[in-house]
């Protein structure tokens, strides 16, 4: 579907548009920011999960001509066009890492295109992750940048300096280019601090605000801090914003439980090595049965070679069933990772097989994009509370 760029421009006119982009966390952060911006009872329009290209933005804005605030999740590659078309007030840049290897989207190229787009958008405020060198390069030419020390677990895609031919050196205090081209971790206006199980946002102006979320994982605490900084730009103070965000229990079905016959499956999404690394950290202590479902459809990327960069060794000792269109690629990967497993092409059958040996028939299911969405649609929702509301 080709969308007239003027249409998006026209539909955005007179609204405060915030955009959220990055490899991982877009959908969740879009929801968190929308809830925060609605904390003063303003109406906020957001785009449907996954419809993060211009046709999806147009569809969302056509469906709601009233709201004067919009929060749109934007595919990384489309971000420059959408920044221009919407004259975005605020853009949140989460992280950049490898995803969908068969698309022409090498991360340094994307960062370079972001940079050019922000240089040409002098009124846009950019909220950017100071811990991701690729994001810092991409945001660096913007007139107003609000750096956030949001953390970054996955550093493997960011070692080559995006600004020169040098090498990025990470240490406990931050990062900088060894070639001294000048690219260095900028000083954040707010940073994430996790201490003794408590998570706080620490602002450079001295504020310290607790981040208490209904969503699991350090990565969601990062997303919330980024959203809080973005909310302040639009006049919602961080305490109010984070309070509103704390009420969200689930976003787009992630971490919800679905029933498949006798089996109850907790559904989790991980699309790329960075996402898998975060998720395996989160579920690392669990010992129950796991179903891993891998597809390689258009929205997933056609080459699942990235499976070899995921530390599947962490699943050793658990009962594992490999499933999805590419269960055979996964099976070879698991074999070399020393993870005993079964192989079942059909995901629902795989869940039933895994549940047979599991206590109470409860299993964890981790899928990449289309694998996760298929299961979300085919399973039966268990309780209302899991559904969340927009």
């Amino acid at each position, binding site marked *: 579907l080709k969308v007239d760029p003027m249409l998006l421009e026209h539909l955005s006119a007179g609204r405060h548009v915030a955009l959220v982009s990055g490899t991982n966390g877009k959908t969740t952060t879009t929801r968190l920011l929308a809830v925060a911006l609605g904390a003063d009872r303003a109406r906020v329009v957001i785009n449907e999960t996954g419809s993060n290209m211009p046709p999806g933005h147009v569809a969302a804005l056509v469906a709601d001509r009233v709201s004067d605030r919009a929060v749109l999740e934007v595919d990384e590659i489309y971000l420059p066009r959408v920044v221009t078309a919407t004259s975005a007030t605020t853009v949140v840049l989460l992280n950049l890492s*490898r995803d969908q*290897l*068969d698309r*022409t989207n*090498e*991360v*340094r*190229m994307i960062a370079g295109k972001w940079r050019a787009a922000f240089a040409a958008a002098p009124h846009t405020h950019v909220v950017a992750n100071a811990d991701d060198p690729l994001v810092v390069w991409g945001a660096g030419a913007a007139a107003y940048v609000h750096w956030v020390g949001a953390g970054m677990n996955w550093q*493997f*895609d960011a*070692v*080559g300096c*995006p600004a020169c*031919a040098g*090498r990025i050196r990470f240490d406990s205090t931050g990062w900088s280019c*060894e070639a001294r081209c000048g690219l260095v971790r900028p000083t954040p206006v707010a940073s994430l601090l996790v201490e003794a199980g408590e998570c706080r946002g620490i602002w450079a102006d001295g504020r310290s605000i607790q981040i208490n979320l209904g969503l699991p994982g350090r990565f969601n605490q990062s997303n919330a801090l980024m959203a809080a900084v973005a909310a302040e730009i639009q006049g919602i103070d961080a305490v109010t914003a984070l309070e509103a965000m704390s009420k969200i229990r689930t976003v787009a079905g992630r971490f919800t439980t679905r029933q498949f016959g006798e089996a109850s499956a907790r559904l989790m999404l991980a699309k790329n090595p960075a996402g898998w690394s975060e998720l395996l950290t989160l579920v690392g202590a669990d010992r129950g049965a796991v179903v891993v479902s891998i597809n390689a459809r258009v929205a997933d990327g*056609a*080459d699942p*070679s*990235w*499976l*070899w*960069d995921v530390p599947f060794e962490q699943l050793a000792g658990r009962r594992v069933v490999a499933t999805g269109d590419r269960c*055979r*690629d996964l*099976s*070879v*990967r698991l*074999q*070399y990772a020393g993870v005993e497993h079964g*192989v079942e092409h059909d995901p629902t059958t795989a869940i039933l097989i895994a549940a047979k040996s599991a206590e109470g028939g409860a299993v964890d299911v981790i899928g990449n994009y289309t694998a996760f969405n298929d299961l979300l649609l085919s399973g039966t929702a268990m309780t209302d509370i899991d559904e969340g509301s927009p």
Partner: protein
Amino acid sequence: MIRIAVVFPDLLGTYGDGGNGAILLQRALWRGYDAELLQAESGTALPAADIYCIGGGEDGPQVRAARELIDCGDLVHRVSDGAAVLAVCAGFQIVGMSFPGSDGANHDGVGLLDVVTHKGDGVRAVGELAAEVTEEAHWLLAPFEPPVLSGFENHGGRTALGADVVPLARVAAGVGNGDGSANEGALRDRVIGTYLHGPVLARNPVLADRLLAWALDVEALAPLNDEAAEDLRNERLSLVGQTTTKRRSFRRH
């Protein structure tokens, strides 16, 4: 003890090719050989190893990786001392004579393979690739006999072979080197260049064993259970109208 090094995973780790190192390590360990896997990061001295795995990466890091390997010179020395090399995609281009950067300029390669890569016509070769090992390569890989090679290609460069190398395989489905010759990859002594991701050794374990046998200096290796890889091969090859059992015999009786 054999040592397997993944060369510059920080620069050339974009396409999952680091899996080749993990596969070589496991196949040695499973057979009871002492083996070690090294992640040889850029900016540090290249460690001594028996097999070097060089993977695919982005244009900028590719130029930097080539520069570093040329400047230190250790890879060339170790190969002349008998080390084996598996070079994939950007890695294949790096071990050649020259390759194009994103700036359009040609950059020097390490020169282990007599191949020259040019910028393509703008259309990237992306998709399943199946290729039959050539007769010339067959003799160099013997007594190991890889059946039809299977993998996923994703590259914009077009690679032409010089007189000093032989083509690794002949394309049955896909693009391969893309220089109009139907060649896929190149081979000289113990240096294998290919465009196959997957990673290539996950789908083509016989090639892994060929590399290991060179490193271990043995003529044969104990068989392993490769049913999972065989299932994967069957699935991927049938998708492009090939069968995994198809193996031309070049032996003349």
